[in-house]
């Protein structure tokens, strides 16, 4: 099926990637080529074939219900991004990550 630049913008929004009109047009050309490649699949009759999600048919392992990880919050928050909007501070405060307000 043929995609339009509007489709590209919709997909990009779902993927949370900002695109401008110029990017959307360029992306459309490339994606159309790739989807053309993918389209070859439709010629294959796959009736009754069990989908393969994994090469080895293994079942999910269970582990004992015990704590295995230690708290490394400070270590992990050292790599937090900077707040931006003019501030070079890390986007953390009292062990919490800082993001724009989402609830009024």
């Amino acid at each position, binding site marked *: 099926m043929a995609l339009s630049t509007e489709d590209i913008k919709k997909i990009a929004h779902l*993927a949370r990637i*900002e695109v401008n009109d110029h990017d959307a047009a360029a992306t459309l050309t490339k994606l159309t080529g790739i989807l053309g490649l993918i389209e070859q699949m439709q010629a294959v009759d*796959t009736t009754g074939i069990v989908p393969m999600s994994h*090469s080895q048919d293994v079942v999910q392992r269970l582990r004992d219900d015990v704590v295995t990880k230690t708290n490394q919050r400070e270590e992990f928050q050292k790599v937090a991004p900077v707040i931006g909007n003019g501030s070079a501070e890390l986007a953390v405060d009292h062990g919490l990550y800082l*993001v724009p307000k989402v609830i009024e």
Partner: protein
Amino acid sequence: MTNIINASLAQLGQMLAEKQVSSVELTQTYLNRIDALNPEINAYIALDKEKTLAQAKAADALIAAGNAQPLTGIPIAQKDIFCAKGWNTTCGSKMLANFVAPYDAHVITQFDAAGAVNLGKTNMDEFAMGSSNETSYFGGVKNPWDFARVPGGSSGGSAAAVAARLCAAATGTDTGGSIRQPASLCGFTGLKPTYGVVSRYGMIAFASSLDQAGPMAKSAEDCALMMNVMAGFDERDSTSLNREKEDYTRDLNKPLRGLKIGLPKEFFAEGLDANVAKVIETAIAEYKKLGAEIVDISLPNTGLSIPVYYVLAPAEASSNLSRYDGVRYGHRTAEYSDLMEMYCKSRAEGFGAEVKRRILIGTYVLSAGYYDAYYLKAQQIRRLIAQDFVEAFKQCDVIMGPAAPSTAFKAGEKVDDPVAMYLQDIYTISTNLAGLPGMSVPAGFSTGADGKALPVGLQIIGNYFDEARMLNVAHQYQQVTDWHTAMPEGLGS
């Protein structure tokens, strides 16, 4: 004394044991070579000489105390996809340009426990998406055989580092050919193990059902020693397979008489460079001399592997890469007014063009209404591709063919045509889809119109968990040929 930069890992181990050289001296030799050559080749994107030399010193203490293991004191280059505590770990992306890993990947832990020295982090295509290393945020890597050409990808930095002797050996990862195609284009030995043999813990995820780490080294014997360190069960990776520990060197010296080699006709069809085909045929003839039998086989669904891969890999990638939202780590845009804008701008700025394309394809094929036509269909054809191999291995012990359709291509040649770039992996992708092990072994050179001799890799595909046999098959070939010892000219000694 063997020329140190061309010495095998076993020889280096012996030289260290006999105190002909210390790990600090050996490591410094490589650091000096990196200083001299890396500004041009761009194989490494993170170096930390202090940390590296401290590890070398610790290794020398282990050796002096008689506690050395086979890789103790040996300098290894690590692909920048592996988290290494305290090291900048970027996966070749602007998104992680300032990310210092707070923990070690399982592979890094294994090398540390073996007493190996981490020489530095190597360049790669962004999030391992590419076949030329040109999608890296940190710039392309030059092929040591011809600086105008690409080293292949995505493990292009590790590939160039092995070929230019900027490390004793390196690690790579292979989702659709990212160890084997660069091994072919740069002329060394690389192995992608059976899916589940090497833990993916701490290895930055691209397509989780396909990603697998493996060794990149000068010979099959070196790869076997690397596998002894890398392979093994790890409960932190839910797909890690709980199997007995193996010694991958155990079968190296077995004779090949009676070995059945399957040649899939689809690997020698249209699209294969004629000079590459000639090199592969010569290599097969060598195997006949070693007593192997040739069996003609067919893998009829080979052509579908690329379409299937470009549904499954982007779908898994779009899901895996959704974690990069600018909240807890990674790039956050400088200016934003609300959360949605922060997400969208951070991701638009942090990801490069190829990564964005794959996220968009993945998002599209997984979106409501399209799941059955794309993702489910691809998973069904994936089973057909895997069944082709099951049938083939009823007739032969290993499968052989080219690892890549051509020798190294020029930088810039395919950057504007993603589909042409994707076709680089036509012979490697099907083994990832099936979860099988595959390797590339230097088999000779092909001279192009410009008179440059470029390496060609022979691919060996084995049945599940047959790595020791594949290494045996490669090692025996390397006992009667010397392609694997060739080193590019003009890179010092």
